């Protein structure tokens, strides 16, 4: 890693580590939620920002892992996350493999709609069947443990540090991934698929691998979400959830990894603050999304650059 990235990451991690020290339970829980969405958004950024795969069904993998975690705990009493985390992430990866095989045959707008529709299919599957708890979902009363029953993964502080570790590892993994030869191939595919094929790359394989990795990481976020919420309900599979995480990626700036993290913070704060201010918060969020997308190509970073250029503050972009 370059020095500046190393320093910035170090500073951010240090700040993150101190949050529980304030002793404010709300703050710790809130930060946990933001970090979970940061993981979720980074996983989508791998697809959208690096490989040009605009998925509008990414919540499917988050939801599948969440339901897998909840079912493992509710039906067969597996509440040790050392078991349920890998199992649920693997389930998400397998579902991503299946959906990817079907949807990646299509391109462009078909891909957007097909991913949306498959996620919606899963939504109805859990929403309509008693096994998955129907529209109420699965509410968990047991606590999660980490290895031994004495170490609770549902303790807010333990859970928080767990999430920090997961987010950090996800970031580092993706940071290296996108700089590896594999990552460069993805960028090539995003830039010019035909050319890549003419160079001898079999595009489908790389896209599928990316889709599965992104799905697995979304699954990781889904798993952590159940630790936090003790609930898996159909709303996490809804396409609105997919649209939200897509908004996080775009708000912060796609293809940057850091952008989606910032986007997660911003969107969650925007929704929370707007909801505090008025019950009609969706109006505010809707207007913000429309304005930022219409006028700021490349999310907030792009918007800032556009405004700066107007004001004559522009420095040339790197």
């Amino acid at each position, binding site marked *: 890693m370059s020095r500046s990235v190393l320093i910035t990451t170090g500073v951010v991690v240090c700040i993150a580590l101190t949050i529980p020290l304030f002793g404010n339970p709300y703050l710790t829980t809130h930060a946990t939620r933001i970090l979970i969405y940061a993981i979720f958004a980074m996983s989508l950024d791998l697809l959208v920002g690096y490989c040009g795969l605009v998925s509008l069904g990414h919540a499917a993998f988050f939801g599948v892992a969440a339901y897998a975690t909840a079912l493992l705990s509710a039906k067969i009493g597996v509440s040790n996350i050392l078991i349920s985390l890998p199992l649920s992430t693997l389930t998400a990866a397998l579902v991503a493999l299946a959906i990817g095989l079907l949807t990646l045959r299509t391109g462009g707008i078909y891909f957007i709609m097909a991913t949306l529709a498959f996620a919606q299919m899963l939504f109805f599957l859990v929403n309509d069947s008693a096994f998955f708890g129907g529209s109420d979902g699965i509410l968990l009363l047991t606590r999660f443990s980490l290895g031994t029953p004495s170490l609770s993964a549902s303790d807010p502080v333990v859970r928080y540090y767990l999430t920090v570790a997961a987010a950090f590892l996800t970031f580092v993994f993706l940071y290296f991934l996108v700089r590896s030869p594999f990552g*460069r191939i993805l960028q090539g595919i*995003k830039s010019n698929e*035909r050319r890549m*094929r003419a*160079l*001898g790359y*079999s595009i489908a394989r790389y896209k599928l691998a990316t889709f599965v990795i992104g799905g697995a990481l979304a699954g990781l976020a889904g798993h952590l979400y159940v630790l936090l919420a003790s609930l898996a309900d159909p709303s996490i599979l809804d396409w609105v959830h997919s649209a939200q995480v897509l908004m996080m990626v775009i708000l912060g700036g796609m293809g940057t990894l850091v952008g989606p993290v910032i986007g997660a913070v911003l969107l969650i704060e925007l929704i929370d603050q707007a909801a505090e201010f008025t019950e009609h918060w969706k109006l505010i969020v809707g207007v913000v999304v429309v304005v930022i997308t219409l006028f700021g190509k490349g999310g907030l970073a792009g918007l800032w650059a556009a405004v700066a250029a107007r004001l004559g503050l522009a420095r040339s972009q790197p």
Partner: protein
Amino acid sequence: MSLLETKSLSKNFGSLNAVRDVSLQIQPGEIHAVIGPNGAGKTTFLNLLSGELPVSAGCLQFEGHDITRWSPDRRANAGIGRSFQHSAVFEDLTVHENLRLAAQTQYPKSFGMLWPAEGYTDVAARVTDVIAQLSLNAAESTRAGELSHGEQRQLEIGMLMAISPKLMMLDEPTSGMSRNETLELIGILRRLSERHTLMLVEHDMDVVFQLAHRITVLVNGSVLASGTPEAIRADASVRIAYLGQED
């Protein structure tokens, strides 16, 4: 044995026969030029060879294998490389990165997911080697989208060199180039022909007659004539149908 052979290759777009019944052989080591007026079907023919388009009828063989149903990437891996008529470099990536992506295909060990791409020194060496053979003025770190048109065309040929195909197919490599750039490119192509078989679609007759060992003339999708430059120059029907327009 010829390197590439097409047998009655045809391509229809609806009722339009863009390529009709083309049978042609490309011998190892030769420079084979395909010429013809605008809309003659040259690019379409090349697309059939590279697998970009499925054929409507006929078949093609490469080194004796029937490759008619092979995907473009499989053909590329078998040794058929191509450039595109309208520059197709990766505009968002740097010159170095463009060439690295191409060179990487030659080193199966370089497909890792964890270590930075820059760390693979054998790939980097190949990129340096290719750059040395081109005459680019821009730095390696320039974004390809910022290169001049002529340099983008050169970069594209560089990418082909990096994958070192047995057969290099170039679709109008000199189009839009200045006289000097064209002359430089002729030099590059001549050197390339020492190691690669070349198929050249080209409008510039100077380039064609300076380089080609054999010329095939396509008109309305069909082969009007095929032979040595002298034979083509002397062919009356070619003169009427094609060369006459140039004079």
